[in-house]
């Protein structure tokens, strides 16, 4: 579906000068400020995958997405999306992708939601009959009926996001880019968005690329993540592989046994075991010889793993 090779973007901005004649000076002086936002990024994404594209603020996530969608032309490297070069075949590529920016709506602010959807339908040349079936499906799936006739500016954030999702998949694109689709939403609205993404991916075989800062989204939706930092790919693979680390068992024993060689104790005197294999067996073995007064198990989670990667 997507194949990116050595994708690089260097931003070269003319130095701007303040003041009324600043514009003229900017034109004349031709001084530039350069910054490499994406630095040799390569990956392949197959049809039907749901990918988490993660990175800190300013890591180059948005720039990559903008190159994949054809908004930006890369400085070097190549991308093919469904066989097309996005920035060269911008119009054709646009018909194949749906994009949702969580921070920025594509809906017409002062018009009822239904009018925005109709406009989007016209812009993508969706035939009337297909529009109606598509709309009907989305009304059920996203529960749009309550606010279809409300001006967008009066919608709650959760309602607006559902409207934006509807607008992005109305013309049934095979590829969906979601840029922080759950930002600022309450728990129920977040769940609704996630369920929708799962549904679209399951029934339509839609490929989804998700950027988010909410790792719960990633855990709920993605099997694979691509981690990017300072313009470079840090990790690309299955979440399971990333989180494949021992679980940690912490026990407080009574009466306190003598120091056991090779087993770590923490500040409160509890014993700490890192276990890859049979956890219940281990607990049974300990309780056979000691009375366990307190016990806790720490599962390795994505957040701490990712924090670990960044701090490396």
């Amino acid at each position, binding site marked *: 579906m997507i194949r990116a090779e050595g994708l690089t973007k260097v931003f070269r901005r003319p130095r701007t000068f303040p003041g009324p004649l600043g514009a*003229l000076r900017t034109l004349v002086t031709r001084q530039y400020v350069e910054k490499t936002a994406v630095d040799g990024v390569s990956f392949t994404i197959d049809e039907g995958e749901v990918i988490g594209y993660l990175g800190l603020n300013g890591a180059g996530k948005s720039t990559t997405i*903008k190159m994949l969608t054809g908004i930006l032309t890369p400085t070097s490297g190549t991308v093919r999306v469904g066989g097309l070069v996005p920035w060269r075949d911008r119009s054709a590529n646009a018909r194949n992708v749906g994009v949702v920016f969580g921070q920025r709506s594509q809906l017409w602010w002062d018009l009822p939601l239904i009018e925005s959807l109709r406009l989007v339908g016209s812009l993508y040349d969706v035939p009337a009959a297909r529009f109606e079936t598509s709309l009907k499906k989305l009304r059920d799936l996203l529960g749009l009926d309550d606010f279809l006739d409300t*001006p967008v500016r009066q919608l709650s954030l959760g309602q607006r996001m559902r409207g934006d999702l509807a607008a992005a998949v109305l013309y049934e694109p095979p590829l969906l880019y979601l840029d922080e689709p759950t930002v600022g939403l309450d728990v129920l609205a977040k769940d609704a968005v996630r369920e929708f993404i799962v549904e679209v991916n399951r029934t339509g075989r839609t490929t989804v690329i998700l950027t988010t800062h909410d790792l719960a989204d990633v855990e709920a939706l993605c099997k694979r993540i691509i981690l990017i930092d300072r313009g470079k790919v840090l990790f690309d693979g299955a979440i399971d592989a990333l989180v494949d680390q021992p679980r940690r068992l912490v026990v407080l024993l009574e009466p306190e046994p003598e120091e056991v060689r090779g087993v770590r104790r923490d500040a409160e005197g509890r014993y700490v075991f890192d276990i890859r294999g049979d956890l219940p067996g281990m607990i049974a073995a300990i309780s056979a010889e000691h009375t366990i007064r307190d016990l806790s198990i720490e599962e390795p989670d994505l957040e701490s793993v990712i924090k670990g990667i960044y701090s490396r």
Partner: protein
Amino acid sequence: MAELARSLRLYVLLQRASARSAMQYRLNSVIGVLSGAVWQGAGFAFIWVVMHTFPSLAGWGLAEIAFLYGLRLTAHALAMIPMMSVHDIQWVVRNGEFDRFLLRPLNPLVQLMGNRVGLGQVGDLLVGVTLLAVAGGNVPVDWDAWLVAYCVVAVAGGALIEAAFFLGLSSLSLRMVDTTALRVFVDDVFSRFGSYPMKVFGGVTEWLLTFVLPVAFVAYVPSSVVLGKLDASWALAAPLLGVVLIAVAYLVWRRQLDHYQSAGH
């Protein structure tokens, strides 16, 4: 050709959506149209008062000046009705709205033009057409279908000239070079000097307004032809210049679009 027809149809659709949005603020919309009309009316009142005492301005009578004024104003209104929302480009680029235009299968310029409806320019259009009609009946010209048709072509040509300058300057904003002040200035020169016979200015100014910033071709040259003050061989100069300039402006736009850098990455 089919793509052009599709763009036009979608432009109308977008513009209608913008108009419906604007009508949510009905009072402001009415005021917008009215203030455009009053502003232009006041501009003409000056000419009317001066020509009450002095019947001739560089050899042009009141009706002739009114015709010139009307022709320029109509061309200006036609240029600015689509260009008004291009004026917002700096803002549209900065807040990321322009990214969305690039994500849709329609020429981003068409989407930008359809983004807002120029209500003040509708007021200009009303005054312009009224002046043109009233003055047209009072100037010593034998009207026939050809001449009327020529006026339509001339108005379109004038509109293209103004729009070309506006578009060319606006496209620099795609690379975050703010030309808003420069555009206001150019628009001001077109409006202020375009409604008078160029002979009034004479010398260097006349030359500048003809060959550097071709204000003269928007209305002065075509009106002179209609009113028999200039040889008919000049008739097509203005419309042709308009077509050439708008083509150049569009090339500049396309070139700047290739260097578009989107805001905030």
